[in-house]
C-alpha cells in the first residue's frame, strides 16, 4: 500500500493546535520488586517541546512514558501537568493525552473504523463515526476502513495506532519507539507526521533508538542510564549532540555484542 502524502494537514481531525501540556517531574522513582527502574528523575518539559528520550534497553524510557501516561504510579516523587497557567487534575489530563506504544493498542478482531469508533466513544467525542472516518483519511487508511486489523501490515497497524492516539486531538503525545518495525518509507511518513504535530503546538515526548527519520522535529534530547538522567540538552540547547552520542554508544554496544 502506498504511503499517504507526507505533507499532511494536522493528522487529528481537529489538529493539535490547542497548545501543548507542560509536565513537571519531581524526584520520580519507580521500583519493580527489587529493581529500581527510575531513580529520582526531575525534569520540566515546556509546552510545545518535542523531547526524545534516549538510552539503551532497560534505561527507564518506557517506564517514564508509562508514568507520564498515568498507566503506572511512581513509587516515589510527583508528576504534575498544566495547560497554560492552570494545573490539571488526573481526570482532565486523560482527555489530553495520546499514546503510541510498543504494541499497537488496537483490536485485531475489529475493523479499522470499528476500532476508532470504539475509542472515540470512550473519549466521549461527538459523532464518533464521523470522527473515525475523518481520522482514517490522513493516515492513508480510508480505503481499508472496513477491513479487519489482523489483515493489516505492520506499517498500516502503526498508522492506525497513530490515528487512535490523535482521535481526541491531544495536547500531549507520547511515543514509545514509534519507528520500531517501520520501513524507511514508513519512518519518513512518521517523521512528517511528527513535524506536523509539533508545528501544531502539541507537546511530544518519545523514546527512540539510534538515528531515524522521526528525530527531525526533536527540540530536546534526554539520555537516561540506569533510571537516571545523565544528559539533557535542555529546552534551548542542541539536541543532536545527545542524540549523536546515544547513537554512537548504541553502535559501540552493538559491535561489542
Amino acid at each position, binding site marked *: 500500500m502506498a504511503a499517504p502524502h507526507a505533507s499532511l494537514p494536522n493528522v487529528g481531525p481537529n489538529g493539535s493546535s490547542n497548545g501543548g501540556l507542560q509536565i513537571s517531574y519531581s524526584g520520580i522513582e519507580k521500583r519493580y520488586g527489587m529493581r529500581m527502574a527510575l531513580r529520582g528523575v526531575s525534569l520540566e518539559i515546556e509546552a510545545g517541546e518535542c523531547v526524545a528520550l534516549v538510552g539503551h534497553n532497560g534505561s527507564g524510557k518506557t517506564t517514564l512514558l*508509562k508514568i507520564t*501516561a*498515568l*498507566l*503506572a*504510579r511512581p513509587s516515589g516523587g510527583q508528576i504534575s501537568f498544566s495547560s497554560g497557567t492552570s494545573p490539571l487534575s488526573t*481526570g482532565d489530563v*486523560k*482527555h489530553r*493525552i495520546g*499514546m503510541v*506504544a*510498543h*504494541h*499497537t*493498542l*488496537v*483490536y*485485531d*478482531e*475489529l475493523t479499522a473504523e*470499528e476500532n476508532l469508533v*470504539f*475509542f472515540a*466513544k*470512550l*473519549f*466521549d467525542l461527538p459523532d464518533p463515526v464521523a470522527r473515525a472516518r475523518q481520522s482514517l483519511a490522513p493516515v492513508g487508511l480510508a480505503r481499508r476502513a472496513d477491513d479487519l486489523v489482523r489483515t493489516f501490515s505492520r506499517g498500516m497497524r502503526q498508522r492506525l495506532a497513530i490515528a*487512535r492516539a490523535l482521535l481526541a486531538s491531544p495536547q500531549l503525545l507520547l511515543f514509545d519507539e514509534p519507528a520500531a518495525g517501520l520501513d524507511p518509507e514508513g519512518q519518513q511518513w512518521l517523521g512528517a507526521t511528527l513535524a506536523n504535530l509539533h508545528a501544531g503546538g502539541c507537546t511530544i515526548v518519545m523514546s527512540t533508538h539510534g538515528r531515524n527519520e522521526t528525530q527531525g522535529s526533536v527540540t530536546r534530547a534526554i539520555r537516561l542510564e540506569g533510571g537516571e538522567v545523565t544528559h539533557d540538552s535542555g529546552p534551548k540547547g542542541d539536541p543532536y549532540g545527545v542524540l549523536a552520542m546515544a547513537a554512537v554508544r548504541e553502535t559501540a554496544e552493538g559491535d561489542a555484542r
Partner: protein
Amino acid sequence: MSLAHSTATILAKELRTEFRSRELLGTTIVFVLIVIVLFSFTFDPTSSESRRFGPGLLWLSFLFAGSLMLQPSFLREQTNDTLAALRLAPIDPFSILAGKMAANFLFLLLVELILLPVFAVMYNTAILPVLPELVLVLALGTIGLATTGTVFSAVSAQARLRELLLPLLLLPVLAPVLIASTEATAAILRDPSELSRVWVTFLVAFDVIFLTATWLVGEYLLEE
C-alpha cells in the same frame, strides 16, 4: 463519560468480537456438552438418582465452562496491549471490569440455557414446569461466577503461569456460590418443588458483596 455509558460501550465491543469469532462460545458449548454426557454415564439416570446428583453435576459443568470461558477475558487484551488503551481512556476503571463482567455473564448464561435442555433429557428431569425459578437461580449463580471469574482473570492475566492460576484462584472462592446454586437448584427440582429463600438470599448477598468490593478496588486490579 458516565459509568453506564462506558460499560455499555465495552460490553458492545466484547459481544461484537466474540460473535464475530465465536471461538469461546463454540469451544465452551462443546466442552460442557461432553462433560454433561460423560457425567450421565456415571450413574443410573432414574428420576430419583438424577434429583440427587443432577444439580451438583450441572453446576460443576457450569463451573468448568466458567474457568474455560473466563480465562481469555483479559488475556485477549494482552495481544496488542489493548488493556493499556482502555486505561488511557478517561473512563472509570470499574467500567472496564463491569463491561467484561456483563459480557461474561451473557456468554455463560447463553451456554447454560443451550445446555439446560440437554441436561433435562440426559438426566431424565422435567425442567419446563419450574423454568422461571431455574432461570432465576441460574442468573444469580452466573452473576457470582462471572463477577469473580472476571476479577481473577484480570489478576491472573499479569502473572506467570496464568493459565494454571485462574482455576486455582477461582475454585476455592466460588465454592460458596457452587454450594448455594446447587442447593437452590436441588430444591427446585425436588418433588414438591420449592424456591429456597435461604439459598437465593445467599446468592444475592454474594453477588452484591463481590460487585461492591470490585467497584472499590477495580482501579488497583487493572494496574501493572
